[in-house]
């Protein structure tokens, strides 16, 4: 997006490989100093962040759309593993599940009727018709919905109390997460695209908050703040205990001089890394192809001059809606992958600072509009974010070492982990100001 500003970064042929080598070196250093387990944890989450950043880069980098609700699309994608792979709760569907689905159908019908009335009627009749359809729909919805929810939540509330899932393989949940997020993006894009750019930012901020609120409060859906735990692992990933019980595995690890317990955790993380790496590679390949295609050129043309593109006969709003949904789908996919990695769904952990604005920093630092840049930015910023939490207190310790013991010193020390938020803000501002094209500038 920032191509119109004076560019600082002139990329040589070796710039990208060099920066990726730096990134790899940082991960290896982490492995050598803190331990390979910690390095792999950072790398796996870094790959997932890279996918989120790719999604946001499509919206912001290709099209200049400001999405401040990444957290919502990610969280919605994270719902998919719960719905797809958890075992169904016995009797939940017959107790109230079908009725809940019926209630949701009523809600959708009410919205459809209201939309139709809005198109058909005029003047006072229009307002009255739309309001009546919505009010009647809402009352009916609550009348059907509430008792069913109460019955579902009464089933074994300590460990279930929700509908459960379909009991299917969790890998299926990844595309489903993408579809869920894209559907939400369609609804929000339909209303706020085509207006001035800030409106999309404000509306997405809202949808992000609301999706997280729904996931926190609708216990019948995902147990809310009670969390869903024990989400099954995807197909090639084994469980650590099974590996440790496997004599062949133990023998091999001992042959390599590795403790079997450490070996099993590392193996699991490595397999996850491979799995995520394949998804990232496929996405990158697709995104690069798309960006170089006529479609990608059109997108950039629209971004750089909407008026000119519209004059050339491009439907700007439609194209924006398309790319907004596409980007959201990628975020949803990343959300589903993250929940699969964690093995649990904890709605309370979705914090906009972490899942919206940090992803934004990743895209801008990496280089808006450059897919490789997003990947690089994501892993680097994620690394910095994790390490800054530890470095903060250490630096602060140095800074306050000459101070005498007292409440101020203790306060500064306690506050030190928060330093990373300031670091991220500074990073974003510095990059925007002095190198608006980021580490890997768009070609």
């Amino acid at each position, binding site marked *: 997006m920032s191509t119109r500003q004076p560019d600082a970064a002139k990329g040589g042929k070796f710039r990208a490989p060099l920066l990726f080598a730096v990134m790899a070196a940082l991960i290896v250093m982490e492995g050598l100093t803190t331990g390979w387990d910690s390095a792999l944890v950072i790398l796996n989450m870094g790959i997932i962040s890279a996918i989120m950043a790719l999604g946001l880069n499509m919206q912001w980098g290709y099209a200049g759309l400001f999405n401040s609700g990444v957290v919502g699309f990610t969280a919605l994608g994270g719902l998919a593993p719960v719905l797809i792979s958890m075992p169904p709760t016995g009797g939940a569907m017959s107790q109230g599940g079908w009725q809940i689905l019926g209630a949701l159908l009523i809600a959708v019908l009410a919205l459809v009727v209201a939309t139709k009335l809005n198109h058909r009627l005029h003047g006072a009749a229009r307002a009255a018709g739309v309001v009546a359809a919505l009010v009647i729909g809402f009352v009916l919805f609550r009348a059907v919905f509430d008792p069913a929810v109460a019955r579902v939540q009464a089933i074994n509330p300590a460990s279930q109390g929700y509908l459960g899932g379909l009991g299917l393989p969790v890998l299926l949940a990844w595309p489903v997460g993408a579809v869920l997020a894209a559907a939400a993006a369609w609804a929000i894009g339909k209303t706020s695209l085509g207006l001035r750019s800030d409106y999309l930012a404000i509306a997405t*901020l809202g949808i992000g908050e609301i999706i997280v609120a729904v996931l926190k409060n609708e216990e019948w859906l995902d147990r809310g703040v009670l969390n869903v735990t024990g989400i099954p692992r995807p197909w090639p990933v084994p469980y650590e205990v099974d590996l440790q019980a496997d004599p062949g595995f133990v023998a091999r690890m001992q042959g390599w001089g590795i403790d079997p317990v450490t070996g099993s955790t590392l193996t699991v993380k490595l397999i996850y890394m491979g799995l995520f790496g394949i998804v990232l590679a496929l996405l990158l390949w697709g995104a690069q192809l798309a960006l170089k295609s006529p479609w990608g050129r059109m997108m950039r043309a629209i971004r750089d001059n909407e008026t000119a593109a519209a004059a050339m006969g491009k439907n700007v709003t439609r194209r924006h809606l398309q790319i907004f949904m596409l980007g959201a789908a990628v975020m949803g996919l990343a959300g589903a992958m993250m929940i699969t990695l964690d093995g649990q769904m904890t709605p309370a952990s979705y914090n906009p600072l972490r899942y919206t604005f940090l992803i934004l920093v990743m895209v801008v630092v990496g280089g808006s509009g450059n897919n490789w840049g997003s990947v690089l930015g994501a892993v680097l910023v994620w690394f910095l974010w994790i390490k800054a939490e530890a470095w903060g207190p250490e630096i602060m310790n140095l800074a306050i070492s000459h101070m005498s013991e007292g409440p101020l010193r203790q306060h500064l020390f306690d*506050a030190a982990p928060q330093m990373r938020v300031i670091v991220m803000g500074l990073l974003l501002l510095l990059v925007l100001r002095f190198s608006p094209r980021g580490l890997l500038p768009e070609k």
Partner: protein
Amino acid sequence: MDILNAIVAILNYVIVPATTYGAQLALGALGVTLIYGILRFSNFAQGDTMAFGTAITIMVTWGLQSLGIGFGPLPTALLALPFGIAITCALLLGTDRVVYRYYRTVRAAPVILVMVSVGVMFLMNGITRILIGVDEIKFADGARFLISASEFKSWTGLTEPLAIRSTQAITVIVAGLLVWALFWFLAKTRTGKSMRAYADNEDLALLSGINPDRVVTVTWIIAGALATTAGVLYGLDKSFKAFSYFQLVLPIFAAAVVGGLGNPLGAIAGGFIVAYSEVAVTYAWKKVAGYLFPSWDTDSLLQLLSTDYKFAVSFTILIIVLLFKPTGLFKGKAY
């Protein structure tokens, strides 16, 4: 009698809290709308500006309290408020100087400025966290109630209580005074007039010799005063928590958009529209219905949405306005 009880219940649980909340939102939305009108971007850092100003005010309040200085029946925070405003304004002018000014000179697109304001949001959020931490803080002192529930019941003999907390009264009075001062300033003073001229047409204003730096400086000072006051009033009324201030950005933006971005009068109306809808939709009307229709027996709480979804109300209002009247009720700038 039952009708009176119903009215008192509505007053106590809907009108009084919603008016207070509306006044707080209106101040916040005024800040957003002024920055939008004059600097031409949506300031995502508004919530964190409020949090920063409140944090400073709380720290000064603690300082005053430890010196034994109070404000009689009024909260000490009101004495500390001018200090909070001064420091917040200094911070805002500093960020303008270091950060925003460059983008004005290169005439960056508004969406770039939104992005920049996200960076400033991070900074302020971090500074606030370091200054005062992430926990919930209550800092209201002085008299608790203007009218307490038991007094009201013994005066009137009604079964329903009506309590007005002193913080609620203070909110409405302070917000009213501030809004009056702001409108007087915009309408009567030379600087206020030049600000309106600048907002209407930047080029024409520059041609007629208006000093843009002065306009921008005054705008940030007003925005800082509004944000700090809004934050302190909200904190006195409820409590201070950095994250809930960040979340306030949504209802504040909704209020500003509903009223029409860039329109001060609209921001005030929008603040009250959002606040009243939020409280009315999340209030359980069962008690009121019980007074009005004694024969109607229902198990339902008659609550349209649980309070966890209060942000959904601002959001719905926002979407309705975007769908049907993107310029807002009072003609802002939509495109």
